[in-house]
């Protein structure tokens, strides 16, 4: 389980970084999205992975805390998803504005 998640995060982050360093704005925005997926998975992983456990509360008594996953990373990741969604949307607008103003999709606003 850990190794699958670790490889998944690694592949997402690696592809994200590579795309982030590319010269086209569309590649950059996809790279940022992939990176934010990797980071979101990473935050969940930091709450420790659990198999065969209830997502938040099981049917057993709430007094038994040992079987419960850590709820805080879930709250954090929710916030992180919302924020990265909003900032990506904002970046998309700037990307389109840049395309419209400069006539090119290069990140420097002109072809090299």
């Amino acid at each position, binding site marked *: 389980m850990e190794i699958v998640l670790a490889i998944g995060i690694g592949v997402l982050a690696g592809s994200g970084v590579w795309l982030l360093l590319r010269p086209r704005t569309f590649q950059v925005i996809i790279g940022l999205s992939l990176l934010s997926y990797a*980071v979101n998975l990473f935050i969940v992983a930091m709450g420790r992975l659990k198999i065969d456990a209830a997502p938040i509360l099981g049917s057993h008594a709430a007094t038994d805390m040992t079987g419960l996953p850590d709820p805080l990373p879930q709250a954090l990741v929710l916030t992180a998803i919302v924020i990265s969604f909003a900032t*990506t949307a904002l970046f998309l607008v700037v990307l389109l504005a840049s395309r419209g103003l400069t006539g090119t999709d290069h990140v420097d*606003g002109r072809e090299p």
Partner: protein
Amino acid sequence: MNHLMIAPIVLPLFAAAIMLALGGEQRRNVSAALNIVTTFALVAISIMLLRAADVAPTGVAGVYRLGDWPAPFAIVLVVDRLATLMLLLTSLLAAAAAVFSLARWHRAGVLFHPLFQLLLMGINGAFLTGDLFNLFVFVEVLLTASYGLALHGSGSARVKAGLHYIVVNLAASLLFLIGVSLIYGVIGTLNMADLAARIPAIRAEDRGLLEAGAGILGVAFLVKAGMWPLCFWLPSTYAAAPPPVAAIFAVLTKIGAYIILRLSLLLFGDDAGASDQFGDQLLLLGGMATVAFGAIGSLASQDMARLAAFSVLVSSGTILAAIGLGQVGVTGAALFYLISSTLGLGAFFLLIELVERGREPGADVLAVTRELYGDEDDTEILQETGIAIPATIGILGVAFIGCAVVISGLPPLSGFVAKFAILTAAFNSPIGALSPATWILLFLLIVSGLAALIAMTRAGIRSFWASPDRTIPRIRLIEMAPVAALLLLCAVQTVKAGPVMRFMQATAQSLHAPHHYVRGVLDSPIKPDDSRGPT
């Protein structure tokens, strides 16, 4: 008193919401009035909080528990000396920028006033919060507002610079998240005071992960603070931003420096066990590299806006290097420098636009070859209506000299006092023998002052004396008054250097002895044995 602590966050939020609800652009005058009233109210609130923090024996005026849950479980806002000092600085700059924007800049694009208030909300929240994840949220709020403001007025130069600014800051925010979640994974809390209490007791095998998390978090803030080599986005963004926005951006780099200062002393101060002084050496070296880069950049700048942007780097580098020295006296002096340089730079960003107004774009580059080509195309660029102040150029020149003196650190204004205090404190270090780094810092501070002086003199000569086609710009009183007010504040800081420095030293002492902060937040002795990670 109690609910006053959250006012710096709630007030701008409500102001922005009301502006949007009133119809945004249709009622710009109402928005403008609301913006001014709110910003000046923030100045008053900051002064009240600052006084409260200063008279409090521990330096912590109060801890605001959101939802009234006890500290490690709920988010807290902590009002201490450093936070209130930064609040006051922000609100003063914001007041100047808001008044300045009324003359013309708030009409350059949509929704200037709501974005301005949201930016203030984010900045104030970042200064007040005592929780790492909440810090992330506030930093995102201020960054999102700053994206909008950096692009205010549009134009391809702004969009180009803004694109880089947004990408760099989004990537830095992802690093921030990685750092925060690593720290949470190791220690199991995100409350800063709780972190400080638990760090000395963590297991040796977890220490590597904790330091990796703190390092990644630090990189995210160093991007915002503009430390070399993470600062290449900064000059073009700041130079392209509209002047009132650039003035308030002068405080944005200081947020990175503030968080570095707070977290490095809180988490890795003298009580942190094996991790104490983590990263100090890197901060010192990086800060000095930033000063050198900024000085070279300001010498190489062709126009004043870039010169100002590189001066931001010099100021940021000086503060980071001073933090890296890790001595109480130097930290206090660095805070004095922070206030002085931020006010000076804010005034300079506002002034640049006024000086450049009477000149053709690109005149600096053309100034040398101007005679060869003649200047028949001497057109009046701006049709701004307003009362032309007599002797406008003279007033602008005096203000320019004031900015140059503050930024380069010459007597008699506060920049000199600040640099002198940093160097005096560094040379009176209790450690004994001076390290080579201190000598290099001395050299760099003096050389960077000289570089700033040369660059500013050159820019001043070009724009005030050597422009053959200069038209006298029409400048309104509400544009000149903020610049004058900011410079006056620098002068006040110089005249009242004694009390101000006493406050800074008290701030530095409470930063270097974080147990008051920790106790103030947690309100009870900490049991070191519950410092294990989440199960």
